[in-house]
């Protein structure tokens, strides 16, 4: 596939063109440029090994061992890296049928995933099946719109977490898809699904104003886009403000490049998803400074 480089700049960012936004800082120069790397997967669906070499669609691609080599290389290049997963970790290979998700969580822990959100297939062995594997997961589960209060998962999932890398405060929150009609009630039990748009806006306001985050990332399992009314990442982007990046899943969408779209204020939001089964790793690099130019819309985006 031919990769087109797409440059989008505003007048403000244009003024520093050529330096890549790195060279010129405002006169408050005590704060240097910070670089934060976000790596992400979605819908890995228990694909621990690569596809077979004669596979009809993805011959020889994917595999946890190779993914980890790439992650390590990137971490060496930039230690200020977060590794995130947008859900549907479970279900899709015999590893799940035989071991119930134990190996998936153990490998993600070895790879030092920072956080994951919960996909519909993560309920496939019931909410008890998910709970049973939690001791194997050394990373956070984030979901702001699933209320687990009346379930065994109560207290195991946070709406958001603020990661601090090189002094930059990165707020990451999770969103899950409506379970009714998609997952049997006897699997998700008393899990309550709350409106993702409303919850997203409340969470973002908290992350921005109370948690004082410099970057806000939504880890979503809503799906990239639908022809019908159903809430999706693209709709969420347009109905909210102050989100810098939406990392999506569920629809197994392969994008030629991350999507730049506009939020409620007309500012740019990045929406990305990297197919499924671990055949790709998404990488978004944020270069930040303390020059005072505000979030996102002023930033040069290169995809």
């Amino acid at each position, binding site marked *: 596939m031919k990769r087109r480089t797409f440059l989008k700049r505003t007048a403000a960012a244009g003024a520093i063109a050529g330096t890549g*936004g790195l060279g010129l800082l405002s006169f408050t120069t005590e704060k240097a440029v910070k670089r934060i790397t976000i790596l992400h997967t979605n819908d890995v669906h228990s694909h621990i090994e690569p596809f077979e070499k004669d596979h009809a669609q993805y011959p020889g691609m994917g595999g946890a061992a190779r993914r980890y080599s790439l992650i390590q290389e990137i971490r060496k290049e930039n230690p200020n890296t977060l590794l995130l997963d947008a859900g549907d970790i479970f279900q899709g290979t015999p590893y799940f049928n035989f071991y119930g998700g134990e190996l998936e969580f153990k490998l993600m822990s070895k790879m030092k995933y920072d956080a994951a959100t919960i996909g519909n297939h993560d309920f496939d062995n019931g909410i008890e099946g998910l709970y049973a594997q939690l001791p194997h997961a050394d990373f956070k589960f984030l979901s702001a719109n699933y209320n687990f209060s009346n379930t065994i998962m109560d207290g195991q999932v946070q709406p958001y977490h603020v990661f601090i890398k090189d002094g930059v405060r990165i707020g990451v929150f999770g969103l899950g898809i409506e379970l009714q009609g998609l997952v049997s009630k006897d699997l998700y039990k008393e899990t309550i699904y709350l409106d993702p748009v409303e919850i997203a806006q409340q969470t973002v306001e908290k992350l921005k104003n109370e948690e004082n985050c410099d970057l806000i990332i939504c880890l979503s399992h809503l799906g990239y886009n639908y022809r019908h009314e159903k809430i999706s990442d693209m709709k969420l982007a347009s109905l909210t403000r102050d989100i810098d990046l939406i990392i999506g899943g569920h629809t197994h969408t392969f994008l030629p490049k991350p999507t730049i779209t506009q939020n409620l204020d007309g500012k740019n939001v990045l929406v990305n998803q990297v197919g499924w089964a671990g055949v790709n790793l998404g990488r978004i690099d*944020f270069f*930040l400074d303390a020059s005072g130019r505000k979030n996102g819309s002023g930033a040069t985006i290169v995809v």
Partner: protein
Amino acid sequence: MKKLALLLLLSLASCKFSSNYSPQRIEGKQLEISEAIPANDSISEFVKPYKEHIDREMNKVLAYTPVDLTKNDGELNTAIGNMMADAVMDLASPVFRKRTGENIDIVLLNFGGIRSAISKGDVTTRTAYQVMPFENEVVVAHMKGIYIQEMVNYLVDAGSAHPIAGLSLEIGEDNTIQKVLIQGEPLAMDTVYYVATNDYLLKGGDNMVFFSNALDVTSLDYKIRNVLIDYFTQADTIAPVRDQRFIRIKQ
């Protein structure tokens, strides 16, 4: 009140004077996990005992297919979907007959439930796990004809190749229903039909809400995956085809 004002002042102050970095440049790309990347040894070693155990089970050759089977070879029916629905018809029917003395009239699965293509070559136990990783079981819903009509309407509206067997459907280019036959006979509204599906769809999965009108349900304790394994084991070569069971007629 004073306390509140102080808190407010403090929080305003913290907003104003804290770090506040903002992104000036964002770069995004997708990195392919290709064969060119070396595998990390510690991960491979860790996976090894799990893999060996599974491989022993999974690598048994059950059948052979001379062609790649993907689920995108037809609008309203596909070779792989037809194979799955026919396998349920062939293998679940004797079980149902033994329990109830009745025959399965219709099989309905869902397009989204075909979880993988089948590559040309040996068909193994692993193939069955790839196509049907879920633990869903065959259930038979006892449904009156009027609800079969709802099912037909659902299939026409969905316009996708949900796997069916025992049912023939023809629709026009404007989605009008031209023909509905069950086991070769016209649909009768008062007749009770036996519809084999899986427990996920029975509970309204994929919005198949018509199943909520079932008069009774017979569970067969037979996983769809095991149906496939048994079907592959019986067959020497599998060569399913797209056919006329659900088609759009040019008017």
